[in-house]
């Protein structure tokens, strides 16, 4: 998957976790938590959805890499390079 596709995957996951949030204005360089209401339970859900849908294993010590969209995409590129983008 290309970075742009990974970004879309994350947006799709967020849209399911926080369906009432406007994600169109989400900035890549600002923490998710500063832009949308996302508590620790919801944050864990991003990790769990990635594992469920794409079998990507993210160890707990790497969670801080997922704080922003930009950081998350950069972190996931090597992990998801061989994963096919959703149809």
């Amino acid at each position, binding site marked *: 998957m290309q970075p742009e596709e990974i970004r879309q995957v994350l947006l799709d996951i967020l849209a*399911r*976790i*926080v*369906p*009432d949030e406007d994600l169109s204005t989400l900035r890549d360089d600002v923490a998710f938590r500063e832009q949308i*209401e996302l*508590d620790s*339970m*919801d944050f*864990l*859900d991003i*990790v*769990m959805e990635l*594992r*469920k849908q794409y079998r990507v294993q993210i160890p*707990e010590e790497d969670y801080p890499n997922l704080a922003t969209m930009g950081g998350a995409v950069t972190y996931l590129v090597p992990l998801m390079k061989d994963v096919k983008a959703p149809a």
Partner: protein
Amino acid sequence: MRYDTVIIGAGLSGLAAGIRLAHFNRRVCLLERHTTIGGLNSFYRLRGRTHDVGLHAVTNYNPKGSKSGPLPRILRQLRFSWDDFGFSPQLSSKISFPGVTLRFSNDPGLLESEIALRFPGEIEGFRRLVKFVEDQPWGTAFPSSMTARSTLAEYLSDPLLIEMLLYPVLFYGSASPHDVELTQFLILFRSIYRDGFARPYDGVRRILSVLVKRFRHLGGEVRLRSGVQAIESRSGKAVAVVLDDGTRIEADTILSSAGSVETARLCEAGVTGDVANGDSTAIPSQVPGELTFFESIAMLDRPPAELGIPETTMFYCGTPRFRYQNPDEPCNVDSGVICSPNNFAYEQPLPESTLRLTVMANNRFWFERPSEEDYQEQKRIWRERIFAAALSHIPDFRPHIVDIDTFSPRTIRKYTGHHNGCVYGSPHKQWDGTTHLSNLFLCGTDQGMLGIVGAMFSGISMANKHVLGGQG
């Protein structure tokens, strides 16, 4: 038979836990002894009408679009949208004590202005109390020595105001008499006075049907008429549950919403019963609750508002101090709660008109009736006494009754399996859900969360913490 997780009880906590686990591809089975789902919050048909078992109002309601609070959190965790449960907010409620009434609604400003009017010397203290409550992150656990009364006394000095504020809080969730631990007080105070009340047009069955449909869609299994008689254990681990019919089901993890006393008994049965296969891991003794209720559901020939009962709920007390305790007499007729499912802001009126009257009851009296005839006769006698006493607080609705049903502690025990017919479970809550077995956890009432929203939150948080975990 083997599952990743077995959940004992298909009430709101079990269903919510089940959805979380099934969503993340766990093989989950919900086991329910009763013939239908819902547990303490189920519904039933009687003479052509559908009644909610226990629901007065869903507390902890936040309006659509709210982002914080327990309701938005459970919606996100269960992947539901705001409209799925179809909540309509309450109209307004009141607390009525001799000579004083305080009104409150989902707008916290109403209660504040009522207190400013009736207890002008207390308003600053009340505002500081509210600030203290709101400053505590949701679910903050305090030492059990800190209670509602000791905290209220720090902010308020008028004993009548303290009684009035505490009464709905205890009635809607305290498992201990007269007082409640601070941790639970904070949850209840917010759920009643800061968030507020709502109800789906179709009552609790709307919520249950949305939950069970989702659970099944995700591949979860629900087995009705499947009571658990024992939890087998070995070397400090639960290994299987045994159903009433002898079926044995193995699981990696067990979540039990049966209650702490009830779950401990299932473990004992797994060690000593016919299915004994267990070890001698000590089962700590649990403290049973003793508080329970007697409720009459009166169907009326016209909406309660037309009879001068416009409130959603009304907490009434005929004495300056209430008695929140297991009464010596069969029912405490001095005080109680009157509520009507009609008095919510629906888009269209409900087809039926209903009034519910709930008072505290002595469980032993209702368990120990010598015959079915006597039980029925006592139910009728006490219902009439309760109605007569309630007339000090509301207009006479009795000539408008077209049908009536009454449940007692015996009914609650029969359908929930709760020891003593308790509604709010044990006074000792197990906030982390752990038990003496490393893979058996509690969810629901005895984990500490209350009400419909609280029960779902309990199931979700226990599933997250103990089953999905960090490594999921």
